[in-house]
């Protein structure tokens, strides 16, 4: 003998009933052993599938590739690029794209190596844009974020106080580019995400703020006090002051 409601348990578990039927069901189930156990079985199975079926997540370079794809479609002059770059594996693509950028940007004196680095940083910024958990240390205060990097990196840096400014610190994470570990800090400038990468510089040379475009991002580069900074964002000028603030707190 079967309960007359039993066939509707699946609909109930799937939340596919209209309001009235749902209420009827909700009232019936607690008093019916058969429906209760069937519902429990349904929910258990659904949960098991939900957990086990979510097995794969897109590799970070796919995030970056898709992001480029969307932006290349927006800028017609780059459309010729989109046809071929997909045929090549991502690391090679990054290098090739960097080469394209090298040709198209008045980026005098820069080495191929630096452009490859930039491509890697763009990828990482894109991951920060599209990832649900973009940082490893989540904190709005520099007093938490800065010490988190201590012992993880062979150098230190200072972070500015952003309270009372248009900026908000989201957090930070360790990042690897050019086979070296660096710090990535994530800020918000209004609705825009801003990634700040801090690496140990190759020289003690001081380099002033230099703003340029890389793919669809605004980048700012500078070098001071043995540290090299890259700031990437899709904001226009909103993040300029943040660069200056970072520069100020890292003076020797």
């Amino acid at each position: 003998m079967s309960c007359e409601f039993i066939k509707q348990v699946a609909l109930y578990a799937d939340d596919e009933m209209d309001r009235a039927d749902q209420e009827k069901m909700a009232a019936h189930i607690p008093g019916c052993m058969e429906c209760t156990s069937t519902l429990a079985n349904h929910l258990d199975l659904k949960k098991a599938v939900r957990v086990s079926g979510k097995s794969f997540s897109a590799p970070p370079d796919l995030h970056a590739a898709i992001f480029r794809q969307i932006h290349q479609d927006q800028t017609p002059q780059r459309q010729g690029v989109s046809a071929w770059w997909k045929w090549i594996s991502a690391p090679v693509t990054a290098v090739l794209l960097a080469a394209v950028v090298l040709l198209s940007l008045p980026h005098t004196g820069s080495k191929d190596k630096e452009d490859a680095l930039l491509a890697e940083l763009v990828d990482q910024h894109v991951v920060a844009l599209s990832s649900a958990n973009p940082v490893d240390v989540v904190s709005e205060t520099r007093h938490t974020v800065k010490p988190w990097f201590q012992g993880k990196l062979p150098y230190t840096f200072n972070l500015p106080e952003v309270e009372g400014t248009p900026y908000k610190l989201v957090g930070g994470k360790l990042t690897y580019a050019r086979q070296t570990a660096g710090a990535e800090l994530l800020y918000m400038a209004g609705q825009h995400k801003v990634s700040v990468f801090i690496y140990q510089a190759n020289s003690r040379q001081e380099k002033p703020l230099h703003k340029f475009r890389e793919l669809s991002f605004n980048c700012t580069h500078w070098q001071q006090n043995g540290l090299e900074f890259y700031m990437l964002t899709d904001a226009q000028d909103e993040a300029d002051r943040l660069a200056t603030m970072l520069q100020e707190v890292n003076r020797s």
Partner: protein
Amino acid sequence: MRFALTTTRAAGFQGKSDDVRSDEKFRRDQTRMGPAPVGFRGHVSGLQSKDFEKLALPLLDPLYNFARWLCGDPDEARDLVQETMTKALRGLGSFREGTNFRAWMFRILRNTFLTSRTGLERRNTEQEDEDGFEDSVVTHETPELTLIRRADSELVQRCIALLPANFQEVLLLADVEEMKYHEVAEALDIPVGTVMSRLARARGKLREHVLEMMGTRKTQGIRA
């Protein structure tokens, strides 16, 4: 498997799977004038690339996950997702307002998959029929209660992999992506009734597999 990336290939993508408008003139106009304005061609609203980015990037992991299940191979899955994005971007203007964007994307992905070599192979293998749906909606004996709860995720994964492809996809969309029946129907291009019967059969099969495997493990004493 490789996906051709040319426009002509996308234009050959039609018939039942006509979710990306293949009209050449339409596409040319669209490229020249940007996304189609509201009201263009009746209900065609045309999505801006800017909106597309906001809508599509969060779907990347779900699409990739689904692609991995369909293809069973990371490189193929990767290509499939990229090809899906290419087609979706080209077909932005044909996206109708009020249509479910997520279902639309999954539908493009699946249709693209079905035109790939792996997909064609799959189409040539027999699919589980949906007869006997009524019989499968039986009550479940109480002893299995909590048994499934104890199944580890790797075991369930193997059992999902054992399911016929048409069962697997309906289950993944309904229970992993937590799509409503009508969304699943839209994504798979099948009637809602078929979604329901297939889902019931898929769950029944999966339950069988899981219990069977757990039973085996128990008798073999693998489980501590």
